[in-house]
């Protein structure tokens, strides 16, 4: 994992999901390797990436997110995002990331949409 990114994970029961809280600068295609591994080995069906602590993302970071979304989809699971800083969300959408992963304004909104 990049030294510029930290990830903490918590589990919720309703709906059953893992929530990853990401903080830092996502400027490498290796920043979320750790998350990909956790998702792959998890028996949960829903994963939420809480991005409110991410202050910067570039195309490498978006590319990695899209790559993870493919893996999640292939495994028949769901991935969504919440709380992106407007600039981060802007870059994400400029690169077409929102075609792959739904983005919600808040964690509560994201989870409600999955009920």
């Amino acid at each position: 994992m990049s030294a510029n990114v930290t990830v903490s994970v918590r589990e919720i029961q309703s709906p059953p999901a893992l929530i990853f809280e990401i903080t830092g600068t996502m400027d490498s295609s290796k920043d979320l390797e750790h998350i990909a591994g956790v998702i792959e080995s998890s028996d949960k069906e829903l994963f939420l990436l809480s991005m409110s602590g991410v202050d910067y993302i570039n195309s490498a970071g978006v590319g990695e997110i899209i790559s993870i979304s493919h893996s999640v989809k292939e495994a028949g699971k769901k991935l969504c995002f919440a709380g992106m800083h407007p600039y981060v969300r802007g870059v994400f959408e400029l690169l077409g990331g929102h075609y792959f992963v739904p983005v919600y304004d808040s964690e509560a909104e994201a989870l409600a949409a999955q009920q």
Partner: protein
Amino acid sequence: MLPRTKALRRLRCNADLSVILDDGRPFSGIVRDVSATGLCGFIVCADGNFGGPGTCMEITAKGTTRTLGPLAAEITALEPSYLSGYDLVFISKFSALDDDGREALELFVEENKLEPDDEDEMDEEEEGSLDLPDIKNADVVQFTFPARFAYVAHFRDACEKLAEEAGFEEFDRHMIKIVADEVFSNALHHGSDAYGCSRIHARVLVGPEAIALCVRDHCGRPFDYRKYRQAPDESAPAMGSGLNLVHRIVDDWTVKIEPGRFTEVCVFKRKTTQPQTAVS
């Protein structure tokens, strides 16, 4: 302001090259870059049968007055040549270099290295490929960075700072930072140490209403940049393509490629006059 960096891991050299592979076949070519651990060379090998990574060989380089080697080395990377007249470019690492060998190497490099001015450095008179009235009489800030990803953040932060000093709003500054990141990263992908290119040159032109960033690598490896001018959509998303992101952000951008010499990407962005949301 970041200082110009002259300390390089690799030095560009100009010398004749002879290679004998471990199966006894001889090849000739030129030395491109030399470092303490290996060298990058271009060779003539019309059938492409030069082995691959792991192939052992003996290298001899003939400079102006001094001959280096033969040195035992191993191929670490091999690609089609981007210099005309040569078929392959290889990167090698020396297998064993004792103190005498290191000293001989240093003397050889000192005698045959190309000075920075020989390396298509950007100069004031050559204003890049963009010729726009908004950027005439702009302040020009030049940078030289080692061609390593560790320096991407330095460049993008410097560009953001320059944009701030020029009065760009926060949204514009963030976009300029991203563009600087992507253009510099692109230069590294096409002209990094792995291809024997040791430096990235950048020039930032800061005008009262616009900013231009020109970033040049010194490999000049051709690539098809036209596809990045298409906007991503549901059927063909950009998939993390840096230049596609650049295309979506800036007002104009150009690519200038001199095969074997340099590739330069110039981007141009005016100040936005209205408050922006992040998504266009």
